[in-house]
């Protein structure tokens, strides 16, 4: 791409190049994800028609062949993939093998719950973890540091689904209103929604908080040891300014990286937490679909979450360029 030579627009041009390069890089990964999820259903013993008919299959070989032809299963695999990819690009994820309803519709209905849970858990953990991590680094070796590190170590070790189970037990005994299993959509009743989401959010967010806290502490410690921090202090800059303007901003890259990387873990974790709290999200859809051998639904859900994960990673990559201008110049 031709870039104007004036220095003021050169930075913007480099940023644009950086964005385009990263966007192009995501395409083969997304294609790879689509191939893998497509092949997933073809690794099953038999084919979709046989899975659909189950053990009650009384069709003759002729009828089976006709049904397979109807679903395009008699075509070469790569043609089936291209046809599936074409439908996918038009938002068609196929249909549920059990209910016959559009898989896309079922998954999109559930997706809002999963996204809400993931975002709430992310907000809770980042707020908790970044403040704890900065304090622990600033008070290195003190009681606050020791306390924060110990809490993080325990937080890392607690299985989130077990924490969820224990929170349900605790809430049932002491605050029964929090142990409700009836999900209310946010736009219907925000207060009731947030009350239902409180325990799942805490269960899911706590292990991420531990990871982000450790990363924040380590990144802050590394930056606080740099010479420019000593220079800022020697110049008499207020400690608050040194920590937040000079140190924290430079420590942000590893923190953003770890938060972005952990988004996928949160999505995976949400699958389990939704099953603990009976939330009607994609996790419930996936597990119910697996139990009913509804593989198109499993395939669609996995594909959608993986695609979202790739996009999140892309956004994280792009955010580096915004946080640290040196990266987009490289």
């Amino acid at each position, binding site marked *: 791409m031709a870039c104007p030579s004036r220095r003021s627009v050169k930075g913007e041009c480099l940023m644009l190049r950086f964005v385009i390069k990263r966007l192009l890089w995501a395409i*083969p*990964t*997304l294609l*790879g*994800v689509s*191939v*893998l*999820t497509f092949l*997933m*259903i073809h*690794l*099953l013993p038999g084919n979709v028609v046989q899975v659909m008919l189950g053990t009650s299959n009384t069709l003759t070989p002729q009828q089976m062949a006709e049904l397979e032809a109807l679903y395009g299963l008699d075509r070469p695999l790569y043609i089936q993939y291209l046809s599936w990819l074409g439908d996918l690009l038009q938002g068609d994820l196929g249909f549920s093998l059990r209910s016959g309803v559009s898989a896309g519709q079922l998954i999109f209905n559930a997706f809002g719950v999963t996204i809400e849970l993931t975002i709430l858990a992310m907000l809770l953990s980042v707020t908790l973890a970044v403040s704890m991590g900065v304090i622990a680094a600033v008070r290195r070796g003190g009681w606050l540091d020791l306390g924060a590190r110990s809490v993080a*170590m*325990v937080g*890392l*070790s*607690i*299985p989130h*689904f*077990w924490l969820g*189970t*224990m929170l*349900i*037990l605790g809430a*049932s005994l002491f605050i029964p209103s929090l142990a409700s299993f009836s999900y209310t959509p946010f736009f219907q009743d925000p207060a009731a929604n947030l009350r239902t989401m409180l325990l799942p959010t805490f269960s899911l967010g706590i292990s991420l908080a531990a990871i982000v806290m450790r990363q924040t502490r380590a990144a802050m*410690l590394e930056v606080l040891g740099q010479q420019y921090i000593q220079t800022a202090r020697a110049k008499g800059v207020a400690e608050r300014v040194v920590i937040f303007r000079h140190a924290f901003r430079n420590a942000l890259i590893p923190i953003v990286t770890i938060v972005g990387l952990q988004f*996928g*873990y949160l*999505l*995976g*974790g949400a*699958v*389990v937490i939704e*099953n*603990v709290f009976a939330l009607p999200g994609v996790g419930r859809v*996936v*597990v119910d679909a*697996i*139990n009913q051998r509804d*593989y198109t639904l*499993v395939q669609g859900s*996995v594909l959608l*979450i*993986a695609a979202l*994960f*790739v996009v999140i*990673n892309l956004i994280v990559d792009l955010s580096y360029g915004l946080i640290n201008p040196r990266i987009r110049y490289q």
Partner: protein
Amino acid sequence: MLLIKRLLRTPAGVAGLVLSLLVVGLGLLAPVLAPRAYDAMSTLVLSGPTGDAWFGTDQFGRDLLSRVLYGVKLSLKVAALSAVLAAVVGTFLGVTAGYFGSWYDAIVMRLMEILMAFPPLLLAIAIMSVLGNNMTNLIVAIGLVYLPVFARIARAPVLALREEDMVTAAYALGAGSGRILWKYILPNMLSPVVVQLSLAVSNAVLTEAALSYLGLGVQPPEPSLGGLIQEGQPLMMLAPWLAIFPGITIMVMIFAFNLLGDTVRDQLDPRLRRMLGS
């Protein structure tokens, strides 16, 4: 031996090592230590913790302590084998990709990137849904999930090592690729792999527990820790110990392996060791 000596220098290292050995010992000796067979039923149903049944009994009168001990054994077996599978295959792919480069490197690393594009637990769930529930499939599924991390970690140092004089000298003396990889490259890049292996075990314990909790792991009556929590959940108000003890056990296992893994990393990473020492 040197690593163990270094581990024993720090309180966290001692605690991590002792706790990990304790967990491994409990798992290995489960058949000896368990007061009863894990599937032996009795008339003493849903009894709380007592002197006879330390962790209480379940709705079929089975001793929970025995089931937890067997669960630890199963969990360790799955976690260790899947972590080793991921480490061996991942390191092989990473080392060969880094050493041979070219199209082979491009293909292997793109494949690893695609695998990493899936949230780990979701990938494990998808693999299990296709392969079916049994222990071998569980090990393969968890191993596949953690394999790309090893490939990436192993590849990076090889890129620098293959340009070293010792490799050029070995090549000039007629050493083949296999010998160079085995004698000169592998011994010089194992530290990060060992660190990752110790952390992968604790991740594998957690993944196995989550899959079993969802009913996608080892099937009953064989006890798995995640499965025990799932079984205990509907009875939680009546018999909370059924979910409490297996959960605490998983927590202690992960805590022990994380503590050990963290200390191993601190000791094997010279830059970090200097920072901690200063």
